[in-house]
């Protein structure tokens, strides 16, 4: 599935430095619409940094990237969220002391409008909007398979549920691209299995998925294409089977020199 002529996200020579450390150097890749795209590499390879760059949390130092045909190289996170990039975090970052439902409702913020006036008067428009997002939040809770009272605080959910709540919150922003940073980390086999099903459902609903993952089986079973990063550089790209046999990749994971 190559859609190189009209990619959703395209990085061209992206570089990001932290002092003397090149966390990303000259990374180019393109992600087609409807793909599940894998991003793998050893710890410290720069995967999360790449996420932070395309979600606007870090500003890149070199190169540029376009999303849905528009260049966003120096933009605030909320602009990119509005453009349609949503993400989860490697270290879960939920709104811990808000309820599961509220977490998702915050995700709806970017697609809703009511302000101070609506809040104070609770006029028809504000009430309708509030009802709609509460409804949507309940649906999303069910969608990601969290079967808990809605008032449960986010931090009182189990680890696997928290990971899924993060996905639900990201989906509430109505993204075109869903970027997941190690969503299966710390999950057991059953949980990983249902996560896989969930990601397939999400893709089937028309959302492109960018996935960082260490679980090789998950990557192999899910991804259409994979990019491998090592020390901030792209060392391989292609379909999972082919990447897995790439000598440079094997070397990177074993810590040796490329054959």
């Amino acid at each position: 599935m190559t859609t190189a002529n009209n990619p959703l996200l395209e990085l061209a020579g992206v570089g990001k430095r932290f002092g003397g450390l090149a966390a990303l150097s000259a990374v180019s890749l393109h992600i087609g619409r409807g793909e599940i795209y894998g991003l793998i590499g050893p710890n410290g390879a720069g995967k999360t940094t790449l996420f932070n760059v395309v979600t606007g949390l870090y500003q890149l130092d070199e190169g540029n990237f376009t999303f849905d045909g528009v260049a966003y190289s120096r933009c605030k996170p909320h602009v990119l969220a509005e453009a349609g990039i949503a993400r989860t975090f490697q270290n879960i970052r939920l709104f811990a002391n808000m309820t599961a439902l509220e977490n998702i409702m915050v995700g709806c913020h970017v697609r809703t409008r009511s302000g101070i006036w609506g809040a104070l008067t609770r006029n028809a428009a504000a009430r309708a909007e509030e009802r709609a997002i509460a409804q949507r939040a309940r649906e999303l809770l069910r969608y990601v398979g969290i079967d808990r009272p809605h008032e449960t605080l986010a931090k009182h959910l189990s680890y696997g549920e928290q990971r899924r709540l993060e996905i639900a919150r990201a989906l509430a922003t109505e993204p075109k691209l869903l970027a997941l940073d190690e969503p299966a980390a710390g999950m057991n086999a059953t949980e990983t299995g249902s996560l896989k099903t969930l990601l397939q459902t999400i893709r089937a609903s028309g959302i492109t998925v960018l996935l960082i993952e260490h679980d090789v089986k998950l990557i192999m079973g899910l991804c259409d294409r994979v990019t491998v990063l090592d020390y901030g550089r792209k060392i391989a790209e292609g379909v999972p089977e082919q990447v897995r046999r790439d000598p440079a990749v094997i070397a990177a994971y074993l810590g040796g020199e490329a054959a």
Partner: protein
Amino acid sequence: MNLKHKPLLAALAIALLLLPFATDAMLGRGWVRIADFALLYIMLALGLNIVVGYAGLLDLGYVAFFAVGAYNYALLSSPQFGLHWPFWVVLPLGALLACCFGVLLGAPTLKLRGDYLAIVTLGFGEIIRIFLNNLNAPVNITNGPQGISMIDPIRAGEFSMGGEHQLFGLAFPATHLHYYLFLLFTLLVIFVSRRLEGSRIGRAWMAIREDEVAAEAMGLNTRNIKLLAFAMGATFGGLSGGLFAGFQGFVSPESFSLMESIMILCMVVLGGMGNIGGVILGGVLLVLLPEALRNGAGPMQQALFGKTLVDPESLRMLMFGLALIAVMLLRPAGLWPSTQRRRELSPDEMISHQEQDTVYDNSK
């Protein structure tokens, strides 16, 4: 509003309406005035609660907005400039002006977090006070440390709240009239707080309090949302300040010291950050307790030891500090925390969040 709360609310309403006469009859004349101040402080604490309790922005200079509201009233409605604008113009103007100051002082702090934010806001609070203290030369605007006196009382047409009035066959002294006016405004502030709390805006504030980076990534324009919190909080402060000036008839920079900011912050924290009921409780306690001590500590020492060992004034601060420490140790979420904060500090935590704040996801 729950139906079973109706009788309770009705009882509370009647109690609040009768309070000035009840205290007059039972405790003595001075207490209505203290109740008036309690109401002003409650408004301030509710305003600060928006900034600190909801949005999680530690503001140590909040009293500046109280000062802006008060001086606005004092300058536009006193012999200082010979202006005597009506209160229904001056009061909203003061709230609006404070709102602008909220944005103005908030804007430079947007990138700061935690301790740094506290230090900078503390500085801003002091700057405002020092300005007020020194704006008497070369042109005299604020009358410097002497302050501005003979401020017009709050007046609606012929009805001035500065003096006693006969209504429904009862005598209403100025303190009583102000009590009812302040009560009205306090209810307004509570109403606005409640509406905001349960709204899209309120959720956005809390999301920023919980995790600013995640909030940003979820598409919240954190700059605007924080400014909105500063602006709303400051508006309440300005409102309270205007009422204070009209009530007191006199303002001077002394009333707007850092200690006041800390006092208001204590009300919020002691009572229960983020919970309107808790904040009100904090306000009431922190106004009443010192007064009770002031009135009680002297005579009690006389009775016990035959002389006054410790000056009631210093005892007041001592007790105050002890009470604060006790509350922080025994009820770290405040006396009446919001349900969420209560759950947050409950022991049945299922997962630890310490890993959450690790490394680089945090920084920018």
